[in-house]
């Protein structure tokens, strides 16, 4: 079992029994998220990506662990830092990157942008850019699954800063009293935007220390360990599917860059950054897989394939047309239009 209470030692690979085949899928997913985000960053710097963007570099293991463990018909609710969670559900790279570039071949034809990635056909039920909003909304999807008796589970990702907004508390209470099939995943990267989370939070563990208030177990997981995240995901998804109600996970992690495109992250002490870079999930996981029998050629092969995927996505996104101005007036209403009068 990957989940642990807050005073336990970090979960080690040794106590998590994840088959190699699954681990290779986790590795591939982490590589996809890393290389995609690096390319998105580069395209930002080239002025191709407009607006803002929030990258998950360093935090890939969380989205990957859930992405690999979830059933295709489960629901994902992500935040404005949602590229990784979207890709981890199998959404192709080209429409995601094209959306960042504001092209017509974007996931939402350029109407949403980086912060609102959505692909209903992949169960990605939206990326939400107002802190906390999607927790109650994810409850609604979980309630619907419960009502319809489909065994689907909603997984709702959010940051540590979200634990201090009212919607977090409303949603947790609501999910528990209705015994909803939902997993709340707090990605605690130690900073709410530019401020250390412990400067603005009454408790040490922003999610786990609040869990008890709602009758939930305080689960803290190493968010830089794909195996631990996969195991925690499997456990909590199974619980939800079995009708045992919601779970709240606090995944400890670190973003390698700043909060958003405009932020170099200079407010973080050098030694802290160095410590976390030394715990970069990708090289750590690669070493672990080599230790347990994966070959370097096999892993290099995955790297090369993913690199090619990213290259192709970048070309296809760049080649996408600017959306036509007629799209401005579409899709306000279900009839496809925007008329408000006769």
């Amino acid at each position, binding site marked *: 079992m990957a989940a642990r209470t807050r005073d336990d030692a970090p979960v080690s690979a040794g106590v998590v029994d994840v088959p190699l085949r699954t681990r290779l899928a986790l590795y591939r997913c982490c590589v996809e998220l890393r290389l995609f985000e690096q390319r998105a960053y580069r395209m930002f710097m080239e002025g191709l990506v407009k607006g803002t963007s929030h990258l998950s570099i360093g935090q890939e293991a969380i989205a990957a662990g859930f992405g690999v463990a979830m059933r295709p018909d489960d629901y994902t609710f992500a935040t404005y830092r949602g590229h990784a969670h979207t890709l981890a559900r199998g959404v192709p790279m080209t429409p995601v990157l094209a959306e960042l570039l504001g092209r017509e071949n974007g996931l939402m034809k350029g*109407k949403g942008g980086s912060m609102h990635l959505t692909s209903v056909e992949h169960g990605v*039920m939206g990326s939400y850019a107002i802190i*906390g909003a*999607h927790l*109650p909304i*994810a409850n609604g999807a979980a309630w*619907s699954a419960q009502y319809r008796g489909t065994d689907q589970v909603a997984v709702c990702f959010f940051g540590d800063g979200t634990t201090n907004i009212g919607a977090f508390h409303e949603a947790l209470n609501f999910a528990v009293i209705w015994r909803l099939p939902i997993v709340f995943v707090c990605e605690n990267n130690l900073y709410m935007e530019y401020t250390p989370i412990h400067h603005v939070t009454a408790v040490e563990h922003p999610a786990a220390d609040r869990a008890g208030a709602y009758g939930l177990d305080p689960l803290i997981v190493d968010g830089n360990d794909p195996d631990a995240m996969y195991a925690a995901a499997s456990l909590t998804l199974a619980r939800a599917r079995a009708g045992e109600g919601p779970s709240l996970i606090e995944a400890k992690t670190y973003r390698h860059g700043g909060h958003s495109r405009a932020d170099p992250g200079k407010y973080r002490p050098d030694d802290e950054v160095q410590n976390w870079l030394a715990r970069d999930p990708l090289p750590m996981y690669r070493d672990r897989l080599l230790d347990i029998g994966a070959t370097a050629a096999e892993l290099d092969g995955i790297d090369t394939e993913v690199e090619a995927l990213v290259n192709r996505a970048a070309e296809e996104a760049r080649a996408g047309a600017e959306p036509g101005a007629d799209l401005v007036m579409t899709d*306000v209403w279900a009839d496809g239009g925007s008329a408000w*009068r*006769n």
Partner: protein
Amino acid sequence: MAQLTYREAIARGIAQEMRRDESVVLIGEDVAAAGGVFKGTVGLLEAFGPKRVRDTPISEQAILGAAMGAAMTGMRPIAEIMFSDFFAVCWDILANQVAKSRYMTAGQMSFPLVVRAGNGGGLRFGAQHSQSVENWMMAIPGLKVVVPSDARDVIGLLAAAVRDPDPVVFLEQKALYPVRSEVPDGEIVDTLGTATVRRPGGDATILALGNMTPRAVEAADELARSGIECTVVDIRSLVPLDTRTILDEVSRTGRVFTVEENPRLCGWGAEVVSIIGEEVFWDLDGPPVRITTPHIPLPAADALEDAAIPSAERIVSTIEKTMNP
């Protein structure tokens, strides 16, 4: 044909739709066991059971979030926000999430949900439980806004709202809850975006909404005694807006008055009058006049609240002074 109160019509309308469609569910504070604080949902728990009629905590964001998440995954929830003033504590979910998500996702998602709320003054509840917030609602692209003025319209417009594929804010005028009116037997389904002429008259058009509609009719009856014949148009639906009926009636009479319970600034009548000014200006025989609650928070005392919200007397005197200066 039966005489039904506005509040009884709410339960009948919800029951009509819940019987027809398993995906219709009702949630809100005190809506199940208690039958609603305004007794608008009496009997529904008994009729449809606790899976479909569900009490919630005092968590307005959780209520609207649940409705939104359920709607995007195939259900047709009806959520109650007890007092429309409380939209202020869940405005993000309604204004930022429900209203915009279809557009932002290029039509990937649908939100066939209805949010009901008790709206408006007349009950002496003071400034935080008496507001008319229809103008907040219509300011947000992506929300449909409906305000019935009698029992028949409650059922018909509620049915139309439930069956509509888009989010509809359904504002119930609290002052009308005890008012009885005739309701035909059998299923009633109305059409969103249609105004109703409540009373014909050739001299002026009064545009009214919700609880202002019966007051406008009362005022028009009074004005008729002094020889001023007014048409009263019940707007019923602010979004979509039946501009055709409005403009036709205004053009025909040449004079227009709005009667609005919302506070003056950016009230619904401001938009309607601007449309009239742009499109039928040359049919007007005089300037449009708006009769509204002043731009104030509502006071609680009987005398003060009555002085603030447009009354039949104020409508009569304003129209008389304007028509016969």
